[in-house]
């Protein structure tokens, strides 16, 4: 994928007509194209590589480049150009690439410095970079391998035949005693919730008409409120009593008088005279 993207990038041609350089005694007239990626292509460039190590590895593998034998000044100038662009795109990546270029320059400068003979056997400054490149390359290939391996959910279908799950929890056993005890408890509680049944009151309007008439035979003159014993009688009885009064009045057996509005009402037998 990365090489695909790279191919899309037009190699940047150096503007200088001639380049006077000699490498291993050979005239060198062309800068390695792949190193010069126009900053405009940076976005693709960044997407194509996983980092400076990845880029370096690509350059080495693709062209067998003498990676560290490139004109360092040019490379640095290129890198700095990228940095400027990166500020606007992916700042966090810029640091990684900058570090790599600094590392390359450091190695190059150490190689250029004359070495005292007695410490000739000292570690090659390139060794660390080579070690990192090899490690990175093997990880990169291992990652590709992992990616290609069949995985559950992609290339591996795991058996999952359906079965009717039976609840793992066993229902608790119940003895007859438990049941009896439970029933007793229910009965005990039921008392508290017992409803007060309102039965049809066996009250007769007719019967009350008689009662009122009888009272009026004795007292002959009663205040209307005296007919109703609010403290003793329930509402049904009061209603029936009231109905009885109305009925008696309608039938002309009883006369009700009132002197003025809101003054007491008096009830008396309607004598025939």
């Amino acid at each position: 994928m990365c090489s695909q993207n790279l191919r899309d990038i037009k190699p940047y041609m150096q503007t200088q007509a001639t380049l006077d350089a000699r490498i291993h005694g050979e005239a060198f007239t062309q800068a390695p194209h792949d190193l010069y990626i126009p900053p405009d292509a940076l976005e693709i460039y960044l997407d194509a590589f996983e980092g400076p190590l990845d880029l370096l590895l690509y350059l080495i593998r693709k062209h067998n480049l003498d990676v560290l034998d490139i004109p360092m000044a040019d490379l640095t100038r290129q890198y700095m150009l990228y940095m400027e662009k990166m500020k606007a795109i992916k700042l966090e990546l810029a640091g990684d690439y900058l570090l790599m270029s600094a590392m390359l320059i450091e190695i190059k400068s150490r190689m250029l410095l004359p070495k005292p003979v007695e410490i000739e056997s000292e570690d090659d400054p390139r060794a660390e970079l080579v070690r990192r490149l090899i490690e990175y390359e093997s990880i990169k290939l291992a990652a590709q391998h992992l990616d290609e391996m069949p995985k559950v959910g992609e290339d591996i279908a795991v058996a999952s035949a359906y079965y009717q799950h039976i609840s793992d929890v066993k229902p608790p056993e119940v003895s007859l005693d438990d049941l009896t005890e439970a029933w007793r408890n229910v009965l005990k509680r039921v008392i508290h919730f017992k409803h007060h049944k309102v039965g049809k009151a066996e009250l007769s309007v007719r019967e009350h008409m008689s009662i009122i008439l009888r009272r009026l035979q004795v007292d002959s003159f009663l205040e209307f409120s005296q007919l109703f014993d609010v403290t003793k009688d329930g509402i049904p009885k009061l209603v029936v009593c009231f109905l009885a009064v109305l009925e008696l009045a309608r039938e002309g057996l009883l006369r009700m008088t009132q002197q003025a509005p809101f003054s007491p009402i008096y009830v008396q037998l309607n004598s025939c005279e």
Partner: protein
Amino acid sequence: MSEPENIAQKKQVLEVALLTSRQPLSLDDMQKMFVDRIERATLRMLLDELKQDWEERTMELVQVATGYRFQARTEYVTFLARLNPEKQPKYSRAVMETLAIIAYRQPVTRGDIEEIRGVAVNPNVMRQLQERDWVDIVGQREVPGRPSLYATTKHFLNDLNLRSLAELPAMEDFVKTEIQLDL
């Protein structure tokens, strides 16, 4: 069904359990299914037999990190994939490389990963791997900051059809020719 008496019946119990279980079954799981003690060696023998019984069938019995499971033979996967045409999104190279580093170099810190890849680890990458339950934190390195140590999980091995990390190809297999840095 009453308790399995003979070995053939026990094998059937194993078969039905393996076919219905959503997770690979370990030998411990299998032992739990039988009232009478069954030796692990016996279980292994029965599993071997089961494997042979299913040799000509569409499913195969395989052993992965946490136990045994039945799975479709690879040649049928193409057809099964057509049932679910939506392709699972591929992980980015950053995710896969991070996974490879954790798999091969575990336990590693984020710093170790950054050192090998040469770029900062995106927190999103670690999150994706942890959400997939392929990677988890196994401890802290006793250095300043006590960075978390990451390792791959058994679930990762199960998903990749592996019994252990040892089944992954050796790291050395991935080393190409020597890199010459000419100066």
